[in-house]
């Protein structure tokens, strides 16, 4: 019998149940599940890493399902929730380097003020095809970058690239890769 969110939730920490959606705690003081990221950590991570304002997330709730997979939802709903999907999968946590999802970056990446890299049309096509490419043009910190291209008059985020040793590795999921050229 699951009773993880009962009002008399125990002081003892609990392990994550990967089969259900559970709300992220507001902050470390209200954390019950071991090592679960908090809402505060998540929104500050987006601000510190990509410069996305904290207020962007005011109207959203954050959830974990699976080991470290975070989801963002437009509604305020009761937890836990045993359903198939809830909102948009945005972030992979519970590992040294948190990784944003392709779809999160396509939806929220335009609000970022740093760690954005612009590709040429040919480079962008290679990126969407899932190919890694040598791009010694980034002089910022290594790690996950928001990859975009100038397209139809705007800077359009494409996905997430892992930049290491002068190489941009595509993290576009296989199911999203398409031949554009």
């Amino acid at each position: 019998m699951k009773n993880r969110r009962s009002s008399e939730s125990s002081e003892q920490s609990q392990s994550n149940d990967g089969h259900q959606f559970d709300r992220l705690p507001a902050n470390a003081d209200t954390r019950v599940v071991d090592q679960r990221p908090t809402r505060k950590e998540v929104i500050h991570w987006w601000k510190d890493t990509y410069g996305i304002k904290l207020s962007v997330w005011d109207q959203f709730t954050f959830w974990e399902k699976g080991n470290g997979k975070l989801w963002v939802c437009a509604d305020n709903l009761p937890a836990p929730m045993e359903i198939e999907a809830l909102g948009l999968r945005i972030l992979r946590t519970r590992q040294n380097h948190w990784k944003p999802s392709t779809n999160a970056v396509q939806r929220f990446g335009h609000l970022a003020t740093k760690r954005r890299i612009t590709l040429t049309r040919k480079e962008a096509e290679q990126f969407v095809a899932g190919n890694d490419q040598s791009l010694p043009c980034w002089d910022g910190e290594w790690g996950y970058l928001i990859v975009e291209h100038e397209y139809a008059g705007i800077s359009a985020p494409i996905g997430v690239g892992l930049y290491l040793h002068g190489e941009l590795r595509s993290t576009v999921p296989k199911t999203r890769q398409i031949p554009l050229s």
Partner: protein
Amino acid sequence: MDPIDRIAPIVDNESAFRQACKRRLPSVVRVNTVKSTIRQAKAALDAESIDYETVDWNPRLLILDKQGPGNLWPYFHGWLHGQEEVSTLSAIALNPQPGERILDTCAAPGSKTTHCAALMNDRGLIVGNDNNLGRLSALRANAERLGLTNLAITNQDARNYSIKPFQGTSNASDGFETFDRVLVDAPCSCDGTIRKNPDVREQWTKKHMNSITHIQQSILQRAIQLTTPGGRVVYSTCSFSPEENEAVVDNVLTELPCQIMTWKPPNGFETTQGETQWNGEMFDDSLQNTHRVYPHYNDTGGFFVAVLEVTA
């Protein structure tokens, strides 16, 4: 039995109807306003040198001069979603509002669900349900590509849908017991999709149709039970068959507290009123306030839509 021959006698301008059923459908995309704007989507099609025409009754719909938007940048960006023109009627009739709680009982692969989500400006909640796990994966993929945060997905039999996952504990303020609006885009015999799937003409059988009308009735009944009094239920199919349309709606009018609402389709979109009798069976007079769409009216597929208000 040929589904077109069966229905032709009740269609006005039978020869135009038969001619239209033989023509291929144009390729139509809906602009996903959650991630883009109509202007932005048009700029993308210009960049791809693809000619398009705006649908005159719905500025979010664009008719492309080539088949399938799949391998294009605006599709990858989630700015466009391929959707048959007539199928946008369901979400327009449901008229979901930002912040409301909505259920789509038979959601996969999700064209109508994601259209609802966009009409809600990605606020509130739309629950996309389907009993078929394989089809649900298509709904999930579409929802993610379109960037939706207001969509929850469940895998239940719509005939006895349980709202339990959303109720929460008895003292929780964030749970809810009923939906503001429910869409039933019912599984049907699909004879209205003949322009997309010409094979349906050979494959259609009355036996199969009769076997699904009970399912349609059960899903619609459950939808009405799940809706807040004063709320709206839309029942739609892509079938011409009165057995799957007016007869199903007529059945719930006598069984449950609901009534058919008068609803006006968008300006410039032609429909005709629902039937009030078929094969000797009489339906309630209010069935004339439901809408039939034949392929020759607006150069689309066939469709049926009924808008119901739950009264208690």
